[in-house]
């Protein structure tokens, strides 16, 4: 039977997320590469006591104002947040996550961004732990093992896995191979690798063979479910063309 991982709705795709799950969410500073519709479906689905792993805790106010995973905090579904950039850049507009973290309702584990990326990649690659040169002599060393290699101090960091990864990609084939558009890629490929159940939200679903096999970024084996976005978002995107190239910039 030919493999077909296409789900017809976001609701169905996140239907079985359990309370207490660890969830990776593709996310960086702006809306690019964030799986809005899966996040929205997860809010409707209602799983509680989630541990979220994402670059921000949502609603950081660095760019456009939009509904990302801040809605999971608004709906009180989060128990713990692992992030590198969890707080709003504006003291005047603290995010819902920030309020809950400062009130002690949500536990925060802050991780330097590169270490977070490497921990996720290690989790997906079957590596239990690794030594990074980032962090010795800072508060991020607390509770970690320091070890010297060639006279330079390194910290041991643990691989990080999730039960669920909600990722955003550009196109998928029905088997689950994914490609990305520009900086939409960010954490999405490594999060797809590191979860037991990876669900991808994409602009387009094509037949196997329609994506050039040399260009596949996430091999199908890492992706279990795919859902196509049908609703329009009003962010600026030029999906109809490849990136235009402006000379002399």
């Amino acid at each position: 039977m030919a493999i077909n991982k296409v789900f017809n709705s976001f609701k169905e795709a996140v239907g079985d997320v359990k309370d207490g799950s660890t969830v990776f969410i593709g996310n960086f500073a702006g809306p690019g590469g964030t799986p809005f519709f899966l996040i929205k479906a997860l809010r409707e689905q209602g799983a509680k006591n989630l541990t979220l792993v994402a670059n921000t805790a949502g609603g950081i106010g660095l760019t456009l104002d939009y509904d990302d995973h801040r809605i999971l905090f608004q709906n009180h579904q989060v128990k713990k947040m692992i992030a590198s950039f969890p707080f709003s850049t504006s003291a005047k507009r603290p995010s819902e996550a920030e309020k809950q973290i400062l009130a002690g309702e949500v536990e925060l584990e802050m991780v330097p961004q590169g270490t977070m990326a490497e921990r996720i990649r290690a989790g997906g690659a079957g590596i239990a732990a690794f030594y990074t040169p980032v962090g010795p002599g800072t508060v991020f060393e607390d509770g970690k093992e320091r070890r010297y290699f060639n006279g330079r101090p390194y910290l041991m960091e643990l691989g990080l896995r999730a039960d669920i990864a909600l990722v955003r990609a550009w196109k998928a084939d029905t088997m689950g191979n994914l490609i990305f558009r520009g900086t939409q890629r960010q954490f999405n490929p490594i999060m797809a690798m590191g979860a037991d159940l990876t669900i991808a939200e994409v602009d387009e679903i094509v037949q196997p063979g329609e994506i050039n096999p040399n260009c596949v970024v996430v091999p199908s084996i890492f992706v279990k479910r795919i859902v196509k976005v049908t609703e329009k978002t009003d962010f600026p995107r030029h999906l109809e063309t490849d990136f235009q190239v402006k000379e002399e910039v």
Partner: protein
Amino acid sequence: MDLTKERLSREAIAMRIAREFFDGAVVNLGIGIPTLCSSFVPEGMDVTYHTENGAMGFGRVVTDEDKAQWADIDLTNAGGQYVYPKPGMCFFNHADSFAIIRSGRIDISVLGVLEVNEKGDLANWMFPGRGVGNIGGGMDLAFCAKRIIGATEHTTKDNKAKIVKQCSIPLTAPHCMDMIVTDIAVIKFTAKGPILKEVAPGWTAAEVQELTEAKLIIAEDLKDIELL
């Protein structure tokens, strides 16, 4: 001390830092003043920008008038700003992006500064007064880039020194700073201590020292900051 004395603009700080760039340099620009540096690279010099969110070789920040045509949420820098596409740019995932940083391939990282001390320790991630902060990718850069240049106003909004004896907030990285460019001075960090190399036009070394908690060594060849 005349606190109303004219200081360099944010653009001028960026302009001075851009003079440190070189042909073929790979540069990562932090949020704020650092991002402005890309506008002041000399004609004909090829500088490649790297951004944490997985891109290299893209162009400058899209201007307001170009946004209708060029803004794309899938082509942004680490501050979430739209940048122009450029021939030869490429994209990679976050693990590869920090592999580039961690393996020492960023020639120059320009970072914002909240505090820096005599030893060149940098503290720039904890919001003063809020008790919270965002570490982001700054720590990886501060530990691993070949050269760290700080970009900042010389003092805080309430005129407190940012170049201090001891940092009062958590460090981003110890002993990482190579140079700092402020709105009144260019200071180089060395094993002997911070050396005042350049002052803003109209400023004296003594005046700069007065706004600096750390003890500055005055360079023998101290000169005015030149922007071009």
